[in-house]
């Protein structure tokens, strides 16, 4: 479903991805962890077709981004739902209009059908009754839910969630991750989730990848990842382990 091979990306001469390779199979929920500035968000942007790799091959849903025409790239992007770190909600639109927007642009459904589907997804993320609110009247967690509903309202085969739990309290963070897992379970989408909530991510992901210094250092099943003896993995998990006594993976 997603194949990245030896991807190099730099921003203004500063390397962000340095030979990153990754394979994500259909229907997987891959949790991406790593220290800040390691290239997690850039990885998401490469998969979304928003950042073009300086070199390397990115094949997403059968489309090779390095050789695709603009039209082919746009067609590929329509198959990907993205939840951005900053929510990226359109501030002048209500919650309902925000969630309707992808359907308006990407489908030929009529308005009642679009609204019906949008309302279903708004209810699915627990925001029924908030349809007429503007985003600036919502809390951080509610905004994330709207962004999630908008990202998955078209039932995209690939869903990218770039740090959907950033800045949220642990309870809301876990709720958001559970919702993402639920969406994957219902729709069978392939899901990539970047999150700093490492424990939450381990509980919902089928596989985990550690991005470090612009590369994927380790990519394993959650069980396999916990057993890894690789120095960076151990160090990262030690740093990420939670600050209460007696905590264990189980």
């Amino acid at each position: 479903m997603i194949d990245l091979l030896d991807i190099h990306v730099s921003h203004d001469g500063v390397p962000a991805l340095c030979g990153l390779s990754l394979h994500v199979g259909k229907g997987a929920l891959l949790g991406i962890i790593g220290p800040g500035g390691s290239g997690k968000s850039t990885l998401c942007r490469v998969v979304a077709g928003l950042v073009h790799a300086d070199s390397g091959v990115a094949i997403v849903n059968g489309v090779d981004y390095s050789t695709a025409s603009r039209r082919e790239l746009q067609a590929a992007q329509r198959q990907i739902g993205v939840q951005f770190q900053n929510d990226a909600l359109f501030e002048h639109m209500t919650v309902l209009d925000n969630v309707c927007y992808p359907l308006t642009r990407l489908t030929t459904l009529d308005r009642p059908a679009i609204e019906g589907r949008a309302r279903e997804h708004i209810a699915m993320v627990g925001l029924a009754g908030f349809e007429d609110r503007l985003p600036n009247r919502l809390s951080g967690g509610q905004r994330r839910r709207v962004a999630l509903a908008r990202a998955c309202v078209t039932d995209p085969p690939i869903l990218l969630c770039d740090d959907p739990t950033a800045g949220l309290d642990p309870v809301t963070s876990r709720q958001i991750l559970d919702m993402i897992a639920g969406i994957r379970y219902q729709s069978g989408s392939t899901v990539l989730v970047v999150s700093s909530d490492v424990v939450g991510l381990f509980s919902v992901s089928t596989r985990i990848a550690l991005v470090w210094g612009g590369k994927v250092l380790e990519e394993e099943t959650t069980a396999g990842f916990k057993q890894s003896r690789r120095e960076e993995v151990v160090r990262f998990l030690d740093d990420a382990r939670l600050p209460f006594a007696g905590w264990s993976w189980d």
Partner: protein
Amino acid sequence: MGLGASIAQMGAATLAVARETGGTGVLLGRVLRRLFPPRFDGRELRRCLLRMGYQSLSIMVATAFVVGVILVIQAFVFVDRYGMRSQLGYGAGFVTIRELGPVLLALMFSGRVGAYTAAELGTMTVTDQVDGLRCLAIDPISYLVVPRFIAMVVSLMALTVIGNAVALVSASIMGDIIMEVDQHTFWTSLFVMIGPSDVFLSVIKSALFGAIIAVNSCYFGLSTTGGAPGVGVSVNRTVVSSAVAVFVVDFFSTFVLG
């Protein structure tokens, strides 16, 4: 500061200006490509016309009114000294229509609409809304830039025509009050000496000013980086570069068009 550092600083500044000029040029080219044939969002255009044109009307009219009044007050000494009261309408009309009206209203427009546009697009950029559009396979140039470009050009042209008229009315009233130049004398000297070509020049200038303010504000807005502080920087750059560009374009358009 040593000579080497000064030269390096000048070089960096030159490169920055070249980069920004090139960037706005490329953006202008992309906008023009989407205008023929037209590829833009009509609903967004209506929203922009309302916000940039209609909602700017009151402040532009107020500015124009004051410009007309100040013009007559400043001219009073010279008109009185040389006994040129019968030519007050011509003088006020010439200066207002050909120069002061388009330039001052463009600067005002840049401060109000250009700054707002840079802030709006800058915020959309740093909060990933522009990338959100790309993910929906929506071209941000067609959806965001082209409607703003058309709205700014059309709005500034219309506002300049209205502003010129308001400035001349206020100048005629002020001339009547402080110089005792009656309305008939004022308007007769204006209509005899000022022709359609002067009005045409004014409208062309305002269209050019609208275009450069639009391209500048959209370019700086869309190239915003660095979160909220970056938005402030973009707004600042938009206002400064638009003001400079207005004067440069004014010079060349006056030189070429007369």
